[in-house]
């Protein structure tokens, strides 16, 4: 598909300027949306998140897609079907997320479907997707346990969870609650789970193997492990979706896997 846009560079820049961007997306050579996350940061995140999976011909569901960086990345990596969903950012008066997504999609000429739906209302009627991207959403939910159960219901092979985490000094499963604006002065932040907790929750939901890797920008060497990435694999997942976890990933079910999370 080729770009459908008939906007001039000037018009495109004007439209970009009316939106507060989270993702930096290169829409035309030299025209990059001014996202809070830079192109370089997103490139590293994309490789960390999507690198282990051969997405060619597969289906991807993106929860909380916002400007669409990971939906577009999945499509570029060969996914046959990508469904981008969001509600909070897409209906937010400043973020104008859906407008931003549609502008970027038209410029990039990528076939990605959209559905304005909050994850607290998703269930199996949405269908099942080979890969579900649940990135930066878990800790924004007052009831993340319910939504994780819903994510299980729409996952065909792998659920990828990226989240803020806490209680890393504990080897037992725990999650910390943030009343009001306790965390980062943001009243949409509710919970910080630790890796043992994610392992237990995901196993309880029927995932067979849970892999973990540090977030590429929140590394223990830099004194911070406040975000982590979890790949939860259902029994019977294809090798293309479950067999390419590099050295950065650890199997949380292996003996002693929880020991060195301590700060």
């Amino acid at each position, binding site marked *: 598909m080729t770009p459908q846009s008939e906007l001039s560079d000037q018009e495109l820049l004007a439209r970009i300027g009316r939106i507060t961007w989270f993702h930096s997306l290169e829409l035309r050579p030299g025209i990059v949306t001014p996202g809070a996350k830079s192109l370089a940061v997103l490139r590293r995140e994309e490789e960390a998140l999507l690198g282990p999976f051969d997405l060619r011909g597969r289906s991807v569901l993106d929860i909380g897609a916002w400007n669409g960086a990971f939906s577009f990345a999945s499509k570029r990596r060969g996914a046959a079907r990508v469904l981008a969903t969001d509600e909070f950012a897409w209906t937010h008066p400043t973020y104008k997320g859906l407008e931003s997504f549609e502008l970027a999609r038209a410029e990039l000429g990528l076939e990605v479907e959209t559905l304005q739906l909050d994850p607290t209302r998703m269930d199996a009627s949405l269908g099942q997707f080979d890969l579900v991207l649940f990135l930066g959403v878990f800790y924004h939910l*007052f*009831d993340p*346990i*319910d939504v994780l*159960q819903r994510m299980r219901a729409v996952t065909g092979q792998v659920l990828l969870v990226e989240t803020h985490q*806490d*209680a890393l000094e*504990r080897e*037992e*499963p*725990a*999650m*910390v*609650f*943030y*009343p*009001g604006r306790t965390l980062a002065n943001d009243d949409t932040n509710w919970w910080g789970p630790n890796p*043992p*907790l994610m392992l*237990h*929750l995901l196993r*309880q939901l029927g995932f067979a193997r849970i892999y973990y890797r540090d977030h590429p920008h929140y590394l223990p060497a830099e004194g911070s492990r406040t975000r982590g990435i979890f790949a939860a694999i259902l029994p019977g997942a294809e090798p293309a979706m479950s067999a390419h976890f590099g050295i950065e990933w650890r199997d949380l079910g292996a003996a002693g896997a929880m020991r060195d999370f301590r700060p």
Partner: protein
Amino acid sequence: MSEAELRTAVAGHRWLQSLRLRPDLVTPGLKPEAQLKAEEAALFDTLNLKGAHLLEIGAGNGAFSFAALRRGAARVLATDHLAWTLPGSDALSATQWAAHALGAGIEMSPLDPRELTPRFGSFHVVMATACFDQLFNPIQALRGMRSVTERVLLIETLQDGLADARPLMMGHGQVLPIGGPEGSWVFGWGPNLPLMTQLLTDLGFSRVLYRHHPTLGAARGLYAAFLPEAPDGLLEGFHTPWINVTSPQAA
């Protein structure tokens, strides 16, 4: 029902709670009679239950529902989820035998508290023992309980993370003697006091009282959470060791 039939029924069930059905007949339950009595006193001596409508979540064999009825409650609905619905469970049948033996007119219904909505009706008092211990999703269950509470929610729960000032809950797996002969693996939670206070506040309770468990100390906690519309007089029976832990945000 003859005495022989009753004794056969008692012997033929697995009992979660030790209930005195006759002066010389106590069901051989996992939870001893003395502990149940201590919990009943800690939870119910605080409140005048005369004429109250009470919903019990996680009733097990109904010990607290029977106690509420004895204390004058006008309507008692005993419910349980896992213990009454897992394949191989006989706890509901055991409770029905106990109600029959005690001549106790309580209602009984299997119920997952996650599914509670205002459409279910409302109760002056809602209570849940072993509350977080056996719930995969205690947040949703608390929400459900809140939605049918008219005045006060009483909770008895496992606690953990008590040395931590941060509100948190810790995951706990355990094998419960319910379901098939081998029991059932159940994933639940142990919250700490700051978390309980915050969650109850966020769910709309304006005053929260707390005390340690009467026989097990801080390992388990008792909470009484009041909705804004509960009359002040309702709190009068909550003496030491109950303490007010209401969050400053709720004021």
